[in-house]
């Protein structure tokens, strides 16, 4: 693969003296400042992108901690209140035999966010190091960006349950502080993923490129 990379360097738009609009895909000469189609600012490479990625990623990771520590749901059934965190809820579901749902919750609430953290960090790290990326990296980025929104499934569940299950004494569900944290975490990671300029993947330091 390394040989393949070397033998087949990717021709980038920048290398072609062009700059593409990130919004509409229109291609302009390199120094064009704004897209004539959609009015976006045209930048060949966003130098601050990595900083934003890292910043949002850190923010997402920071708020992910309370999202796991604090309870996600406060369920009050017949006056009895139980609070469950994300992981606690997963174990609770497993105790009840709902392995499928437990897996889904675990996948959506734990594996996906953690994977996103790792994937974004990995991509950003590679770019930071100036390692030339391949198409597989790009696919990874695409997957991360695509799947990020699905992490909100937990938040959706909590939101829907909180809205629906308000039966006063019999049963009532309130979102915990973790719900907010988790939602923030997902949002931050999505912003982080969006902040990432995938074009940086293709760039490699001049020195190494030859």
């Amino acid at each position: 693969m390394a040989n393949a990379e070397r033998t087949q360097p990717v021709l980038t738009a920048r290398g072609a003296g062009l700059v593409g609009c990130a919004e509409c895909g229109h291609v302009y000469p390199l120094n064009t400042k704004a897209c004539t189609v959609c009015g976006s600012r045209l930048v060949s490479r966003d130098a601050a992108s990595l900083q934003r990625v890292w910043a949002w990623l850190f923010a997402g990771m920071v708020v992910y901690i309370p999202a796991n520590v604090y309870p996600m749901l406060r369920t009050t059934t017949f006056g009895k209140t139980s609070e469950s965190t994300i992981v606690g809820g997963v174990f609770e579901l497993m105790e009840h035999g709902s392995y499928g749902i437990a897996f889904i919750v675990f996948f959506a609430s734990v594996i996906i966010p953690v994977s996103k953290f790792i994937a974004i960090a990995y991509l950003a790290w590679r770019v930071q190091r100036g390692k030339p990326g391949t198409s597989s990296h790009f696919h990874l980025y695409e997957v991360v960006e695509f799947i990020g929104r699905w992490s909100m499934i937990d938040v959706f569940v909590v939101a829907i349950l909180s809205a629906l299950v308000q039966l006063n004494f019999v049963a009532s569900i309130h979102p915990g502080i973790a719900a907010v944290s988790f939602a923030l975490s997902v949002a931050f990671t999505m912003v982080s993923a969006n902040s990432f300029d995938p074009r940086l993947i293709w760039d490699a330091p001049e020195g190494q490129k030859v």
Partner: protein
Amino acid sequence: MSDPTPADMNVSQPRKSILRNLSFVWLVPILALAVSLGIAWQNFSDRGTLIEISFGNASGVVAGETTLRYRDVVVGTAEDVRFTDDLGRVLVDVRVDNDVAPFIDDEAVFWVVRPEVSARGISGLSTVLSGVYIEGAWDNAPGAVTQQFEGADTPPLNQPGRPGRRITLATDDGTTISYGSPVLFRGVEVGRLETPRLSADGRTVLVDAFIDAPHDQRLSQATRFWDTSGFELSFGASGFSVDFDSLASLVTGGVVFDNLYDDGEPLTPGYVFTLYEDEDEARRNRLVRGPARGVAFSILFDESVNGLEAGDDVTYQGLDVGVVTGLRSQVLEGAFGPELSLIVDVAIDPQRMGLPPEAAGPETIDFFRFAVDTGMRARLATESLLSSDLRVELVVLDSAPTARLREIDGEAPRLPSVESNLSDFTATAEGVLERINALPIEEVMQQAISLMEAFEQLARNEDLQRVPGSAVALLDDTRALVGNEAIQAIPSQIEAAVNDLTALVAEIREGGAVASLNSALANLDDAMVGINTASQSAPALAENLAKLTEEDIPAVLAELQGVAQTAQELKLDELVASATATLNRVDALIAQEAVQGIPAAVTAAIEDVRTIVADVQAEGAVQALGSSMRNLDRAMADISVASQDAPALTANLRQITESDIPELLTELEAVATTAKELELQALVDSATSTLNRVDALVGSQDTLELPGTINDALTEMRLALAELRDGGVVENLNATLQSASDAAGSVAESVEDLPQLTARLERLVAETEAVVSSYGARSDFNTQTLSALREVQNAAKSISELARAIERSPNSLIFGR
């Protein structure tokens, strides 16, 4: 490949400093971090104070879920449930909110609230769904924070911060009290009982109670608690009644309290109330047991104290002034070696004795020292009508033997006691019933038999037998009175008087002797009537005696006690004795001097009569002699005329005048003097002798000779007449004879009054006979006496009937006829 050869680009990018390249986006993670840390810090700082509560049983307590509540508001959560090192108790770590943590100090109590269904209702129902929770209670004042607590198994009644008072009750029987039983005051629940527990020695059941404010202000040492558990069935004059306070108290038991009197002393720390079985007992035991109140005394009783027990009353004139605190026996050194004596310990309430409330022991003892000196004694008395319970009674006896309050070092002062009047109290129906209640019926029958024996004995009694004897003696006395020598002598004396009077009828008539005698006889008649009345009152007395026997003795019999106890020895004997004494007195009355003096008075009357008669006799004799003298004078005038002719006659006459007649006069004078001077008997004698003398005088030689002399004189006069025919001597003599004839006529006239006197005497004799016969057979007195004896017989018969009736149905004594 053709190289487009772009323009030589100077694309070397300016080296920017790191700071200048730093994006503002970095603020986001910093903010997120700050917020997260802030939340974490807030959580950490708000997580509250950890306290540790140990429970014997923490069933239902779940870490993280079980909450700690204060006034049903969640103030904490159990964080951990674990055991003590020895697994003896469960430790629950509770995270308490910081805002309440300062209030949780030493006095805080915790208990687990669980659903509970009891007779008083259902509590903790919410915990059925929500699970148990820990309830805490503490006061409103912040205190030093304490970490370790011991949880209670049941909700404490005196929760800290709840106004009220916690008291302790002591009772003998804990079956009717249970945890949570209400404490009622006039039917209003003012508190609750806690769980009963046994005292250290296991003899008493102690139970704490918590009285809510403001009702705890009512508590004082005058407060009495009693049990109202269950229901009470009573069947009495008011009918059948079921009594219970409330359904809750019916099932779980309840306690009621009330103040028996005002101004009770405030409670002292550690004061223990006695829980009485019922209201009556509580009200009866007005005084507190124990040394808290009352001054201790002890009383030594010689007699049995069976029926007396601790807690019985000590009364002074019916007022409860103390309580018996204990009975004990003690060996005391007596005159004949050690003796076992019964000592009753009592506690006297000075306030109830009227001493000032602040009077302490010494003042009370001073008072009792004085009281004992003035006759206060202790004695046993029965508690009530139909019980053999005893109480100690303080009485003031005037006749009490001298005694002093014995003060022994180290012991309670000893009050002197006197024999109780249990055995000889006045025979009342109460006493009889009480006695019958106390004694078996056989004993009563035995007593009835012994009563009968007593009556038999009484019938054989000397005194009773002496009653007829006394009556006989009375009759004898009366008879003796009637047959008195003096009275007996009356007829003979009267006879003698009659004899005298026969001779001196005219004079007697003139002297009013007959009237005097009549009045004397009338007096005698009155006296006889008086005696008769006296005799009649004797039957009335006998009648009274009979009535006494018929009415009072059965009444006495009805009071079996007194009769059984005392009548045998005292009452009837005394009655008989007094009856006898009365008869004796009547006897003595009849035999007394005054009555005895009646004959003497009669005699005196007759004596007076005699005196009068004698006077009359004397005067009459003089008069007669005077008239004789006049006649003689006239005769002498004639004679002196004649004497001129008959000197012999004159000489004779002179002889008569000079010797015989003066002698007679002297004699008569002596008689008159003697009659005046002599006493009755002597008077009679002297009268007799006077009569004799008169007789003798009449029959005397001289007097006898007088006719002879007169005859001689007449002869001489006849001779003289014969000599002197025309001297008129015969005419004078005829006149003299005419005078004598006149005298004889007047004597005859006087004799005519004699039958009248005889008739009076006859009447007197008849009355005397009537008097005598009134004491004879079928007389009023005899009838009365007989009826009296008949009444006695009736009384005895009714007594025997009563005894038989009692023998048949002893119940009638209890229930009445």
